């Protein structure tokens, strides 16, 4: 087998160790997400505490996973910023439009159609 290594983009790749660490963090964060869900449904103090903040907590945790996969597995951290731009710009537009869409329609459903 040819042992000659060709660097795909001419920069250093982190060794497998980093990827293993990221994998652990991803599993951990997933566990935290599920834990937050469980606690918010358990009744008593945990539900009173976690319940109101469940959604922000989930959004933050999933954002962390999103960023880790994008930066490390998809290599955006090491790659040229062009690729980060190609990903982040549409994400921002998508996020803003999704939020605007939901706001406009829920206003419409509430005020015009009398739905709760």
């Amino acid at each position: 087998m040819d042992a000659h290594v060709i660097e795909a983009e001419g920069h250093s790749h982190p060794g497998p160790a980093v990827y293993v660490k990221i994998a652990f963090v991803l599993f951990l964060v997933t566990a935290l997400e599920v834990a937050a869900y469980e606690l918010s449904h358990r009744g008593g103090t945990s539900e009173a505490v976690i319940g109101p903040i469940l959604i922000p907590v989930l959004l933050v945790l999933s954002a962390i996973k999103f960023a880790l996969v994008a930066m490390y597995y998809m290599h955006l951290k090491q790659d040229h910023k062009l690729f980060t731009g190609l990903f982040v710009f549409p994400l921002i537009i998508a996020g803003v439009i999704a939020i605007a869409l939901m706001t406009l329609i829920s206003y419409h459903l509430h005020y015009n159609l009398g739905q709760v």
Partner: protein
Amino acid sequence: MATSAVSHADQIPSVYAEKRGIWSWITTVDHKRIGILYGATAFTFFLMGGIEALLIRWQLARPDNTFVTPEFYNELFTMHGTTMIFLAVMPLSATFFNYFIPLQLGARDVAFPRLNAFSYWVFLLGGLWLNSSFLFHAAPNAGWFGYANLTSTQYSPGLNIDFWMIGLQILGVSSLAAAVNFFTTVVNLRAKGMKLMRMPMFTWMSFITQVLLLLAFPVITVALILLMFDRFFGTHFYIPAAGGDPILWQHLFWIFGHPEVYILILPAFGIVSEVLPVFSRKPLFGYAAMVFSGIFIAFLGFGVWAHHMFATGMGPIADTMFSMTTMLIAIPTGVKIFNWLGTAAGGSLQMKTPMYFSLAFIAMFIIGGLSGVMHASPPADLQQTDSYFIVAHIHYVLFGGSIFALTSGAYYWWPKMFGRMLNETIGKVHFWLMFIAFNLTFFPMHFVGLHGMPRRVYTYPAGLGFETMNMLETAGAFLLALSQAVFIYNIIKAWRGPRNAPADPWNGATLEWATTSPPQEFNFAVEPEVHSRDPLWERKRQEGRLPEPQRVSGQGIHMPRPSFWPLLTATGVAGIFISMMMIPYLGWWFVVAMVLWFLFSVFNWVFEPV
């Protein structure tokens, strides 16, 4: 590996000499040929859309007319809009993207030549499918914007809307593939020294257009998927009785639809920004401002969509916000207008046909923009919306804007594409007839709209004061048709004449004029290197008059091989969507078969040796 025929000094071989016949067109992956295919197909659809318009105008010439039934009238205005937007203006722009982006960049072809061919064939199949609906007496009939829940199976039980949905989905695949292709081409295939801020303005505006396509088309894809699921699988996304909301359609559609109108106009802006400097013998005024205003228009274009929905009761905050963003977008547009005027002012104006059309563009687009900014005020728009005042606006920007600019581009680039000049005198007749007829057709619509004539109505009663204006508009429409006949006559006359256009008939500034007319398959004998904007003017300043480029053998230049897999894959894509319409008749087996056919074609494409 394709190599050009060796040329002899005493022969000027046809640039396509080594590739002749239908098979060479079916398997072509050459961006220039694909551009011509787009152009011929798009112009044909443009004429069809024009005939639909003439039928509309004939019906509206007199009050209480019965030339067409109301049902057929609905099909006419729906297909007129759908055809003109998706099958005429967009692919006419694509003609120039295809032909000239690689040339202006100094490249030999686009980044993915076979994907380019695929985009064309998918477009052709989608357009044919959409229009085949006429054969079934089931042409789409709920407007080009297909508002829900008129488009539900309850209110549109026939095949009309199915044809529309499926046709648009097919066309969407074509546009998305092309957008990925051209975006990558501009990013990656620029000649040495061509930084982004040295690119020609047509390429810049087209580049921004690709970004709009990439971000807007997925949204209408989703809107159409939801409609498809409502119609085919019994969901209720847009059905109020089951908890759905027709307004969702309007939002999703216009989140696509507004960027879409910038997709229709930005390439036109780019063409005018090419023609004006050349025919003023002066560089474009304010290059950087033109680039950034284009970017700003595109970006802001995602923030104005609900100005199409001022009459839906969104509430004062939403109305105000969208009104403000809409008025704001007039600013970068104004910047462009002033820069165009600044380009022409003090220049040595060459009053040739391309210049006439580009100058007229500026005037017509200003008028369209003025009515547009009037709609930006929600209270004013409550009167204007769904009236002929809007129809006037639309046509001033899309016809007076896009079509005039595309015609300017056609006259400008014709010699490069076909090796023949279009006749100047006939061109001027074409221009004046078109200009007068266009204004005769659409200017009265401002008045008749404000006087209360609604859109999309198949007739109007006598005694409301609409008669005279409508009669004038109809007369204008037929004169417009005559102007197109003059254009076609010019084309045929040139075709019959000798192929003797020079490489650079207009004293151009950009790289396409450095090639032969038409260019050889590989475009440039030696890949160019640029050091500034307007590279050809720079060369002329340094070297004086440039010699006529010679045809060369092209040996040693590796060009991509022709392939028929793009066409076959395109039939697979169209087949998958069409098979979904056939589920009630052919079941799911046909869908599965089409998916397998598609996969078979893709695998062959991917593993084909290049």
